[in-house]
């Protein structure tokens, strides 16, 4: 709900309704707001029926890949005699993304409830919430919420008095972007270095501790509760465009914009109106130049592309990018695209786990070349070299961190070639100095 700004009347606040409401953080406050009714309902249903409702709702993973959640849940075979696990991915480290942080620090019980519903639906008794170590505030509130839920008998060996066992544990990460990749998260949870695993086997077959595992993003799990309460049709109807994108989506907005914050809109909302009306447009005296709409791993959009976008999975693809994690990075005309991209490349170089040669070497070389172009020491051939490295880094590694590093570089050269050339030819980048009144 535009947090930390006032909610905008064109938002549809389902998940973000209680941001800023300190009472919603406690069990008593959460129950007063209708909390744990969805879990009660879920525990009275057959797990397969829950999976069907979620399937029917069209909910897709909010962690980046957009995989249909109900289908993912249906991969967990009931009655295979093995312990099942649910992992909640709260590693949120994709530059531009900070929605899960708000969800956890304002509505921690919503996540406890979402984890319990998800665990029950996939036949798991244990859910681990893997939260990045830097999130001290979300960690604190999640710890509190879990403790309260155990004390109230919502969690534990007799969850809500149903005789069913549901445990939820908070697990603190220790600083590594790669641990947001699902198999790296599992390695890390097992007490290992966060190196992604080769797939197959997929997590539903052999995940954490070698057992069938489902992994979902914070926002995905939290969305399950209102879907169960209000029905699949209610959720499906919240879409202004493509029927394959349903429900509401949180977008965290940052960079050069008047009102950065976390906004919730229905799928298919016009991006132009979102950027100018909800978020207030560019800073005073400046103009938008480019947008990275789904976290640092998705292609950069020109302003024209962004303004023509409808905000859903298909809409962002149609305009040269992806919805990704919903982390919207807005860049204005005072910034050098080369600097922005060089710093992103450095991010990926720092975060590469180093297992795959293409990624370990590719991210480091990309950074070196990008930085020399930024510093006015590049050559025209450097751009071809970057494109060539980018190709070698794409589709060839265990996980897609490598591809993610190539994405801003390749899309940047394609869409902002002039800025690269200007720096290479010794024409210093002249930012449009804001006409600040």
């Amino acid at each position, binding site marked *: 709900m535009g947090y930390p700004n006032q909610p905008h009347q064109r938002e549809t606040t389902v998940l973000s309704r209680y941001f800023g409401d300190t009472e919603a953080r406690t069990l008593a406050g959460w129950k007063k707001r209708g909390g744990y009714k969805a879990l009660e309902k879920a525990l009275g249903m057959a797990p397969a029926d829950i999976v069907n409702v979620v399937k029917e709702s069209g909910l897709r993973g909010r962690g980046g890949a957009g995989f249909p959640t109900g289908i993912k849940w249906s991969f967990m075979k009931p009655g295979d005699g093995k312990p099942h696990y649910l992992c909640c991915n709260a590693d949120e480290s994709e530059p531009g993304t900070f929605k899960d942080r708000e969800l956890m620090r304002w509505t921690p019980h919503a996540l406890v409830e979402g984890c319990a519903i998800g665990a029950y639906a996939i036949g798991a008794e244990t859910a681990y919430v893997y939260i990045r170590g830097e999130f001290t505030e979300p960690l604190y509130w999640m710890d509190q919420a879990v403790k309260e839920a155990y004390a109230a008998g919502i969690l534990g060996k007799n969850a809500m008095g149903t005789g069913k066992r549901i445990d939820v544990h908070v697990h603190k990460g*220790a600083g590594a972007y790669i641990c947001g990749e699902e198999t790296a998260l599992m390695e890390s949870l097992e007490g290992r270095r966060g190196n992604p695993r080769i797939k197959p086997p997929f997590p539903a077959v052999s995940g954490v501790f070698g057992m069938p595992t489902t992994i979902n993003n914070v926002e995905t799990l939290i969305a399950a509760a209102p879907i169960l309460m209000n029905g699949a049709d209610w959720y499906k109807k919240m879409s202004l465009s493509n029927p394959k994108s349903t429900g509401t989506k949180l977008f965290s907005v940052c960079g050069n914009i008047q009102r950065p914050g976390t906004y919730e809109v229905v799928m298919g909302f016009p991006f132009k109106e979102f950027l100018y009306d909800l978020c207030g447009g560019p800073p005073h005296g400046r103009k938008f130049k480019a947008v990275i709409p789904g976290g640092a791993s998705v292609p950069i959009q020109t302003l024209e592309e962004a303004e023509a976008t409808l905000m859903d999975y298909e809409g962002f693809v149609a305009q040269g990018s992806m919805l990704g994690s919903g982390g919207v990075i807005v860049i204005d005309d005072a910034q050098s695209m080369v600097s922005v991209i060089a710093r992103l490349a450095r991010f990926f170089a720092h975060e590469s786990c180093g297992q795959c040669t293409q990624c370990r070497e590719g991210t480091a070389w990309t950074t070196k070349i990008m930085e020399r172009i930024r510093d006015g020491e590049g050559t025209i051939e450097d751009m071809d070299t970057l494109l060539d490295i980018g190709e070698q880094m794409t589709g060839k590694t265990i996980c897609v961190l490598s591809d993610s590093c190539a994405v801003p570089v390749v899309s940047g050269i394609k869409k902002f070639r002039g800025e690269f050339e200007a720096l290479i030819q010794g024409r210093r980048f002249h930012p449009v100095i804001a006409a600040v009144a």
Partner: protein
Amino acid sequence: MTPDLVGGLESPDYASHDRAAHEPYAPVFTGDVKRELDELLTRYPTKMAALLPALWIVQRERRWVSEEGMVEVADLLELTPAYVKGVVTFYTMYHQHPVGKYFIQVCTTSPCGICGADDVVKALLRHTNAGELGLTSPDGRFTVIEVECLGACGFATPVMVNEEFIESVTPEKVPDLLARLA
């Protein structure tokens, strides 16, 4: 100013490292702390899974994770010290050397970068007297490092001081922020 690509961002503070090395090692996991670990072990089907939490406890108690700390954890979890060290070195948040009383982390990834994070870093280095990234100020109080996205990009520039997360820091706010710590 820009750290080298290879290797971590923290440069060792050898002087205090040596001081610490000469004090006899007292185990971390005794009494209540041992009971805390025992409770943690019930949450996972393997002992190894308690490794990251156990290392967090060591750091909470000692403010860094020493070689002796790693050996103690290895013994308790039936792992080898080399294995534990391999894990410790993978993650950026475990301090392998003593750090200043106030360990300050500043995000400089692009979304914060385009909102002026570099100026926040400069102000912090100047006002803490740390001088250079990764070094500790002469009075032993401050260590400043640059980190990657802290997941609070809409609150540029986020700064972490030990466990405290501070949003929307600007160069102008730095003197007050530091004065509050004193």
